[in-house]
């Protein structure tokens, strides 16, 4: 049996990779994918805790996370599309009208 810690470490590393992606990528869609990595990483933790505690709350939670992820994706991509209509690019660095 694998210790809980291993899962947590995996979760942490994946989360960090997700963060890295958000910080370095300029492609809005890829950035968004990286956010998904973060959410997935959390799911690992949730499920690992669940088994450790022998409960199902975490699984319900990650179920909800999936719902939320789906919702976010649909809205997010809609935003990207609507944005793309005005300005045909999804390079985030091009979106810099408002600052300071």
């Amino acid at each position, binding site marked *: 049996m*694998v*210790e*809980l*810690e*291993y*899962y*947590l*470490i*995996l*979760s*942490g*590393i*994946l989360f*960090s*990779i997700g*963060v*890295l*992606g958000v*910080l*370095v*990528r*300029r*492609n809005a*869609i*890829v950035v*968004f*994918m*990286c956010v998904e*990595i973060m959410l*997935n990483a959390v*799911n*690992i933790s949730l*499920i*690992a805790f*669940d*088994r450790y*505690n*022998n409960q*199902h*709350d975490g*699984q*319900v939670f990650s*179920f*909800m996370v*999936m719902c939320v992820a*789906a*919702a*976010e*994706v*649909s*809205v997010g*991509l*809609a*935003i*990207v*599309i609507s944005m*793309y209509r005005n300005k045909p*690019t*999804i*390079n985030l660095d091009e979106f810099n009208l408002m600052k300071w």
Partner: protein
Amino acid sequence: MELFFFIPIALLSVLLALGVVFNSSPIGSAVSLIGMMLCLAGVFVLQSAHFLAILQVLIYAGAIMVLFMFVIMLLNLKTAEDSVWKSREHNTLLSVLTGFLVLGLAYKMVEIAMDSNFGPGMPVKDGFGTTEAVGTVLFTDYVLPFEVASILLLVAMIGALVLAKTKID
């Protein structure tokens, strides 16, 4: 035994996640992400969360990633639009710093996990992670979140509709 499966899957998922980040083409990223999600489904299985593993495949790898691919195709993005490390000059330092920062973050996360000192867990009871078990919890204890989630999805639907429909009034 579990470890035997866990390590390769975990390594693979990490690699794929890195692939998402460092792939210069959005499609490549998306494909890596699908791979990573499948790996995670495997991890879920290792933890006896079978129901969730299936959902992972269906919702994430299936529905969500398809949507991603679809949008990428729709927008017909040129691949090399942003090559990762070819940052603007003045951002080089920033990028390096960012790298260190994230390393630090990862280190801290791992450290927390290592320090966690969880004792041995409880033995898994029968039917753990099955659809029935999860469903029972979901429809008794968590019926309210379940209902609220529906509103969430409704909002998302409206939102997607409002924002993405072609005809602008």
